[in-house]
């Protein structure tokens, strides 16, 4: 029972309302007040991290999902007016946090603060409203990461959409923002409708089959499903009449949920909302979109699909989603190479990098999935930083097109250039910086499942460096192109920009040099989650032994 959890969600909401009331017409103090609110949220998130690190590590006995710190009250516990198997569905309204959830909460708080700091200098139209919308978006996302029941998860998942649409349309590019927002909305709805059906199906099916109280609580359902999963494995494929242990039913629900999460995370081929939205929104909005909103989908897979639909996940992990991830890495990188617009290039680059996360998560190994979880944070940090830098650049230049390159910006904006190179190198997975750890774990995890996919994705290491370094070369290097630069205004990064970006850089370095503190936070929960996919230890060694025998036999034949 920890009031910190609702506080983390309510602080930005209350803050947003407060600044809308107090500073509506004050474009100076409004955004700064929003920064203060975001800073407070960050402080709360850090103290939550402290609590989580002191909480006992879950043993896995209570099922694959077990919050380490949670908040649930009786008076918030509701029986829904939906009846299944003669019982009313129970809605515990349960907030809880585990390792991956905490990682995402920290990421959200950091990125929100950084974005607000930078946008407070760049947004001159209804600045207070913008800041308030960012805070509301962030509250919705924090809610998703802290939800422990399907209904709450769904509500927050959809709630983020409203402030986001406002952000895209009001502050986006004139002319393209409305069509982009429409496309974003259509896509998201096309995903969330099947998703909510899938959620409902899971609830009804489990209640029908597992003989537990009808509930939307994720840990409870996960435990019941894991129990059935074990039974199913022991029955060695004997067809069970219990609904959720039947693979085909799980596959149905998985397909529905897959649409929702896949579209949200812009999984290939559901990605075409992403380039339009990214390039039509204000670049600081895009920072939030790319860094955190995209992760909602992946987090959904982690939180809902893996624990609740294990049989289907096992079936589809490698042939469907893992493959899509590997293809996305290569496809995104190649398409990025052809882009002539800074924001589109970063958009496709994001698509490519998210492929690594998909790959790692659906390797369903401890190292791969832990690496993927860490990579969600890593990618969020570097992408946010790059989009924020792009926002500054676009503001200085009033264009994001790259055709007039080389620009030679390094000579005029040295601080910006140093940070741009730093985050580009981090993004290309240079060891010692954050992304390397996540990517190498993701590749390594997949290598033990499907070497082919791992190798395909690993080519992204080369292709990713290609477009990224070419971008650096075009933007920053070369003689200052005075003809083009004549239209530039404004100075190099100032105190506010640096105070937004330098902490991110420091975290990137810290995760790269010493990732283990973060890994230890994530690993136990991921382990509990993927342990059901890994063969039991005894079976594993038997496997290896039989493999060894087989190779001996073949040798004898030779």
């Amino acid at each position, binding site marked *: 029972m920890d009031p910190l959890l609702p506080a983390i969600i309510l602080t930005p909401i209350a803050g947003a309302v407060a600044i809308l009331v107090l500073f509506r017409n004050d474009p100076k103090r409004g955004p700064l007040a929003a920064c203060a609110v975001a800073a407070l949220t960050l402080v709360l998130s850090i103290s939550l991290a402290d609590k989580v690190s002191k909480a006992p590590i879950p043993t896995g006995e209570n099922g694959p999902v077990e919050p380490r710190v949670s908040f649930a009250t009786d008076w918030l516990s509701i029986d829904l007016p939906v009846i299944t198997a003669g019982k009313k569905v129970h809605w515990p309204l349960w907030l809880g946090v585990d390792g991956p959830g905490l990682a995402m909460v920290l990421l959200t708080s950091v990125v929100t603060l950084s974005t607000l700091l930078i946008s407070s200098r760049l947004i001159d139209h209804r600045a207070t409203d913008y800041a308030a919308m960012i805070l509301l978006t962030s509250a919705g996302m924090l809610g998703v990461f802290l939800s422990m029941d399907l209904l709450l998860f769904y509500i927050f998942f959809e709630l983020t959409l409203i402030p986001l649409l406002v952000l895209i349309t009001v502050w986006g590019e004139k002319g393209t923002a409305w069509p982009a927002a429409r496309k974003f909305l259509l896509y998201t709805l096309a995903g969330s*409708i099947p998703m909510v*059906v899938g959620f409902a199906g899971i609830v*009804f099916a489990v209640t029908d089959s597992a003989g537990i109280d009808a509930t939307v609580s994720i840990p409870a359902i996960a435990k019941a499903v894991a129990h059935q999963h074990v039974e199913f494995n022991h029955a060695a494929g004997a067809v069970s009449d219990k609904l959720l242990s039947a693979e085909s039913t799980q596959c149905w629900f998985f397909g529905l949920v897959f649409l929702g999460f896949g579209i949200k995370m812009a999984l290939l081929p559901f990605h075409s909302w992403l380039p339009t939205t990214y390039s039509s929104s204000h670049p600081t909005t895009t920072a939030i979109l790319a860094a955190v909103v995209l992760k909602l989908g992946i987090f959904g897979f982690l939180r809902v699909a893996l624990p609740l639909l294990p049989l289907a996940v096992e079936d589809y992990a490698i042939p469907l989603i893992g493959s899509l991830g590997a293809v996305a890495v290569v496809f995104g990188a*190649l*398409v990025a190479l052809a882009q002539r617009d800074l924001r589109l290039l970063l958009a496709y680059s994001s698509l490519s990098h998210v492929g690594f996360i998909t790959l790692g998560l659906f390797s369903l190994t401890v190292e791969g999935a832990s690496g993927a979880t860490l990579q969600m944070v890593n990618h969020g940090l570097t992408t946010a930083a790059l989009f924020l830098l792009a926002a500054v650049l676009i503001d200085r230049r009033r264009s994001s097109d790259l055709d007039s390159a080389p620009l030679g910006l390094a000579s005029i904006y040295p601080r910006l250039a140093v940070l741009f190179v730093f985050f580009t190198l981090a993004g290309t997975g240079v060891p010692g910086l954050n992304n390397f750890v996540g990517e190498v774990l993701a*590749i390594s995890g997949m290598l033990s499942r499907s070497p082919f996919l791992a190798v395909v994705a690993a080519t992204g290491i080369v292709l990713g*460096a290609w477009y990224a370094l070419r971008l650096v070369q075009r933007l920053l290097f070369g003689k200052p192109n005075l003809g083009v630069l004549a239209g530039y205004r404004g100075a190099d990064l100032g105190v506010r920009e640096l105070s937004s970006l330098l902490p991110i850089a420091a975290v990137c370095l810290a995760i790269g040099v010493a990732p*283990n503190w973060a890994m230890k936070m994530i690993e136990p929960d991921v*382990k509990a989650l993927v342990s059901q996919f890994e063969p039991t230890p005894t079976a594993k060694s038997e496997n290896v032994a039989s493999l060894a025998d087989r*190779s001996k036999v073949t040798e004898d034949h030779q």
Partner: protein
Amino acid sequence: MPDIVWLIPLGALVGMLGCVLVRLIGGGEMAKAPAVLGLGVSAVAALWVAFARPGSAPLEIYEGYRWIDVGAFFVNVDIRVDALALFLLVVVTGISFLVACYSVGYMHKDRGYGRYFAVFSGFVFSMTMLVLADNLLVLFAFWEGVGVCSYLLIGFWYERPSAAAAATKAFLVNRIADFGLLIGILLLGHVVGQVNANGSFLERFDYETIFSLSNEIAAEHSMLLGIIGSLLLLGAIGKSAQFPLHVWLPDAMEGPTPVSALIHAATMVTAGVYLLARMSPLLVLTPGVLMTASVLGGITALLGALIALFQHDLKRVLAYSTVSQLGYMFLGIGCAASVDLVGVAVMAAMFHLFTHAFFKALLFLSAGNVMHAMGDVIDMHRFGGLRKVMPVTNIAFLVGAIALSGIPPLAGFWSKDAILSVVERASEAGPARGLYAVLLFVGFFTALLTAIYTFRAYFRTFWGETRLPEEAGHHAHEADTTMLLPIAVLAIGSILVGFLGPAGWVDSFLSRTPHLPEAHEHGESSIVMLLSAILGLSGAVFAYFTRPKLGAVPVDSGFKRAGANRFYIDEIYGAFVVLPLQAISSLLAWLDRTVVNGLFEFIATIPRALGAAIRQTQSGIVQSYALLMAVGIVVLLITIVRQ
């Protein structure tokens, strides 16, 4: 436990942080102080640990900290000290220190002074950690680390488009190799995990784990081992600029000349040789990979020498010469394919690495003096007869040229002889006798070419009538003492270090390396020795008589043109790799914009049409979706639940 060994990398690291600090507080050229001091500490510590420390074991491991520990993925950042590592460390830290001293003068009045020394120290830190790593993943981390420093230093003068392009190219070509290396390492870790089923080894990527399981790996996964070996080799040929990935190194000369001397001649590019030497206990189990290394080395040696013959840019001549000499090292180390030659092959390659570091750094720094005096002109068409203007540099370059050409008794002769002897022995016995016989011939022929191109460059630059370019102004002069002193030390080194080989010191030092078989019967064939000496001398004489005379019309030939154009290898890559990839990239971008996007746009219109049909009124998108949503939910729920 903190040990003095830690000073070797940390000296450089602290130096780097010091430079950054000085740069931030606006200390300008004060940045040299922390860098030189830090590198000095590293060098002294390396020398002390290598030669003076009493009672050290053949293998010492100093615990650092736990880097990654997830599932079965367990990596510590530890330091591993053995003879092989120390041998290379002495070269790396010693030459870094000298080149840093030289840079103090060379980089004087440059805008990026602080940045230069920060990245320079960062490079030395990464390189020492690369050598000291006790597992492959940490090696890889710093392997990329030196690559990043190299990228930043090649592109140091980023305002020059050619420097920016060269930096990008170097990083990308290296990335191709690193891709192979990373997959190789991860695959090896996976195989180790398979073999090590009872879990007695925790750290899968550690050299010790790998070597103690290498026989099991070879027995149970022989095909995978071949793949792993090839991938490691791919990594090595990228970093060491071997054919066909050699294209980045000549372009890397866009960086400041001291950087070319240190990173792109003496140290970083030898990392590939070090990797093969380090992994030799595993690689001997896949002789095919080592033979490939030899063949690629032979091709590279010859190709580099041929291209060097036709270059007019002094630094490019030296760059191709580096490519060619690295080829010798690969040629030598590949002889480990015959099991009884493992020790000799590794030692010959490491010995050549050692001497090459001295004389190539010497040559580059001398070329740097020339460049400095000529106002950054490095085209040999535009100057000549510099021995009168720069007498000391003249002698230094001459010493380097003699050493490089393999003329006795300077350093290059002994180490090249060691390599040729190993190849000769591999051609006498062993599985691929005929192959190594061909390679031996290539080795000798390249030795002749080496002497020719080296001395041709020497005569063109320092002999004949004195000619100066306009850029030199009126102040063409000998370099100052801060620059000449490190050169003098390197020159003395180039004369003397060669004797360490025949004196047996190199063998006795390196044979303390664990897992490296001792090189018994140190039989150097006197015929090889005599022949390589004659070839070196006659090459030099030939270069003297054929040196281009002023005003003489150069003979034009197709071969010469091809050589001057680096045999069009860059163009071939452009046409067959870069262009197709760019075409695919544009095609995919187009497909994504039209087909993928268009398909979904089309699907998006269907519900609107449906909504319009149902409501028969003008309805907004949201309403029609809400309706559809409701209908959809009901239908789906009914079908699934009542199934």
